[in-house]
């Protein structure tokens, strides 16, 4: 039984409300930090915890915090990134719905550490009911003196607000989020300057994911070392994984870093395997932008070692035979799924969401979508596959923000690992309309392991 840190109390009845949350030990981290720790000491604990950004990039949070510029007389801002729009990812929503005060508490403690007096939760506009949940929690926190002027009688004051977006995946990119919060189009900014120096209204700003901020209270309460003791190596603590696709029990799970992938997919404690006794074909373990892996490479790396849920193990083998933990959007494909159609929907997604500023992403995403649409509908050519790989290379690394990469990787990875299936689609258009390709070379793999 693995340890729950964030969701420990998520199923306690009434935990959404202040009273119960407080009774279960809520807001202790604010008390502890404000009364007995300096802001630097809080930053230190977070550094020691080894906590890494849960928004996708996995950047060490303590280090990010220490980059924050602190010019005299200039306000600083903390922004919570609750834009959650990466296909496969629905963990932040779960946390905010179930235990909203945990995020509020995390933001107060983090704001204290960063010397921030105004903080915003930027949440995707579609989550309208969560805006209400959060605003209610914030109102309760004000009422009980955890927000506002001179919190707990100290000199620390903080205002916290919720700002909904208008429907745009790109606003999850931190500088686009800042632009959007300024009431503009979500066009990512050119970096440098980084938000830590010039962010919201040109002031130093930290942007963190919901789950990252929600981990701060436990780190402050129990100490960074205790948090770092959970997990494996540089992947410390727990991670929320939103499991979806062809699973018996899709949903949000808190796992201890280091859990074997196989156990996560097949054990009854987690996803409970694949419905209908179908075989496991492929997996995208970190949200749609990370490379897809065929079942064999997903369960074991190229060296034959079991893959476990850590940043390091999932990326073992680089892009050739590995993938990434990303945002924890864990998408599982059964043997009947069509990789071509799936790749097409991803390409359509990124094309739909490109802000359109830089030419490689703006033009390249549309082109990839159109080519994949053709292949999917039986009008592909043999040379289309190389063309797709080539377009993806032209986008990757040549854009203002990483959405370009996020659009390029899934297409390149699908063709890398499932080229035969694409070729079959191109060469047998009629048959491809009528049936699925199936497991392809994985049939041999399953034959060998005797499934």
């Amino acid at each position, binding site marked *: 039984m693995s340890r729950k840190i964030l969701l420990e109390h998520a199923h306690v009845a009434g935990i959404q409300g202040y009273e119960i949350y407080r009774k279960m030990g809520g807001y202790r981290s604010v008390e502890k930090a404000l009364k007995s720790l300096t802001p630097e000491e809080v930053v230190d604990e977070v550094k020691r915890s080894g906590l890494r950004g849960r928004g996708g990039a996995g950047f060490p949070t303590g280090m990010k915090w220490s980059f924050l510029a602190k010019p005299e007389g200039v306000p600083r801002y903390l922004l919570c990134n609750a834009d959650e729009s990466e296909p496969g990812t629905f963990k932040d929503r779960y946390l905010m719905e179930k235990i909203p005060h945990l995020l509020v508490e995390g933001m107060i403690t983090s704001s204290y550490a960063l010397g921030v007096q105004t903080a915003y939760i930027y949440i995707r506009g579609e989550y309208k009911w969560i805006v209400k949940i959060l605003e209610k929690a914030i109102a309760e926190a004000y009422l009980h003196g955890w927000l506002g002027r001179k919190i707990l009688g100290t000199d620390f004051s903080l205002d916290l607000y919720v700002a909904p977006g208008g429907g745009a995946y790109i606003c999850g990119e931190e500088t686009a989020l800042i632009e959007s919060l300024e009431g503009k189009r979500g066009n990512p900014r*050119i970096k440098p300057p980084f938000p830590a120096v010039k962010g919201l209204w040109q002031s130093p700003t930290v942007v963190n994911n919901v789950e990252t901020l929600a981990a701060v209270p436990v780190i402050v309460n129990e100490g960074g070392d205790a948090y770092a003791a959970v997990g494996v190596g540089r992947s410390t603590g727990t991670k929320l994984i939103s499991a979806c696709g062809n699973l018996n029990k899709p949903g949000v799970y808190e796992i201890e870093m280091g859990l074997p992938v196989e156990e996560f997919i097949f054990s009854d404690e987690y996803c409970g395997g694949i419905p209908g006794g179908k075989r496991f074909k492929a997996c995208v373990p970190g949200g749609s932008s990370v490379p897809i892996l065929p079942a064999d490479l997903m369960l074991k790396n190229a060296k034959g070692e079991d893959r476990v849920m850590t940043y390091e193990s999932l990326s073992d083998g680089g892009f050739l035979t590995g993938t990434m933990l990303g945002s924890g959007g864990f998408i599982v494909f059964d043997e009947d799924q069509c990789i071509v159609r799936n790749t097409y929907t991803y390409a359509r997604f990124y094309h739909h*969401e490109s802000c*359109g*500023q*830089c*030419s490689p992403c703006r*033009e390249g995403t549309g082109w990839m979508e159109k080519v994949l649409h053709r292949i999917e509908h039986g009008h592909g050519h043999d040379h289309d596959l190389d063309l797709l790989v080539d377009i993806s290379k032209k986008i990757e*690394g040549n854009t203002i923000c990483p959405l370009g990469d996020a659009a390029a990787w899934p297409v390149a990875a699908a063709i890398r690992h499932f080229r035969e299936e694409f070729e079959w689609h191109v060469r047998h258009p009629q048959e491809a309309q009528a049936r699925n390709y199936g497991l392809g070379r994985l049939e041999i793999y399953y034959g060998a392991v005797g499934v």
Partner: protein
Amino acid sequence: MLKVTIDGIETQVEPGTTILQAARKIATEQPEHSHLVPPAMCYYSPLEGSGGKCRTCIVKVTQGSERDPRPMPKPVASCQTQVMDGMVVENTTNPDLLAARKGVVELLLINHPLDCPVCDQAGECHLQDLAFAHGASETRYEEERRTFERIDIGPYIQLHMTRCILCYRCVYTANQFTDERVHGVLFRGDRAEIGTYIEKAIKNDFSGNVIDVCPVGALTDKTFRFRSRVWFTRPFDAHRKCDKCCGKTVLWMAGDDVLRVTARKDVFDEVEEFICNECRFDHKVKEDWTIEGPRSIHRHSVISANKYKAKAKTVV
């Protein structure tokens, strides 16, 4: 001063200078090396915040600086990347980089109508030049191209959105040089378009400058529309007393007729001083102007440079 080497040519620049500006400095001081200046379709030095979008100005940094000589892993936008002391940059000398730029040009062209024969910008169009210098002669794009309706924004300016490359220059110009911006970028991704949303005229005194900053034929001068091809007109430096702007312009003449008035542009085709609409549109008679003499245009244009011939030779 910082030392930077571009395609083997060394120069010294102030801290804060970008690679593109350093390359332009080399070209200004040693015109024989002009070819090493990366093409810039969106950056425009008079416009604050411009650049970084088109990605045609990419270069390869093979040595980051004296102190940290590691190369940068990916090509960088030279218009945005500041020079570090001891930086070594490759542009025309790096075949991989040229291939990457070719890729950018290909992407810029997939949705372009390629209607140069009927476009007023032809002959002074940066996309045309770019396609000539870096494009492929065939397209791999077999999908439908994006199109938009042609619209008039006010009596003087025509917007041909299908040709636009979304450099945002006209938006920055309206922001920084006019009182109120009425046009902007609408929608997103490859459906993004320059527009006013509801039919509105751009009425501002300085609005005509958007025509000069547009690198392609998306914003053109309606008063010049189809009057002549640019290469048949002769440019003259001229000025008049104007209480709105500097009054220093270029008249594009055919015989004694003034067909078009534009601002003066430097060797990198950037406006030296912005001019007002009155000078641009309302004084199309020779008598209104003091003509200073013929203007030598640093024609980057494919047509004036006789490049078509060169190309024909290699093809045959």
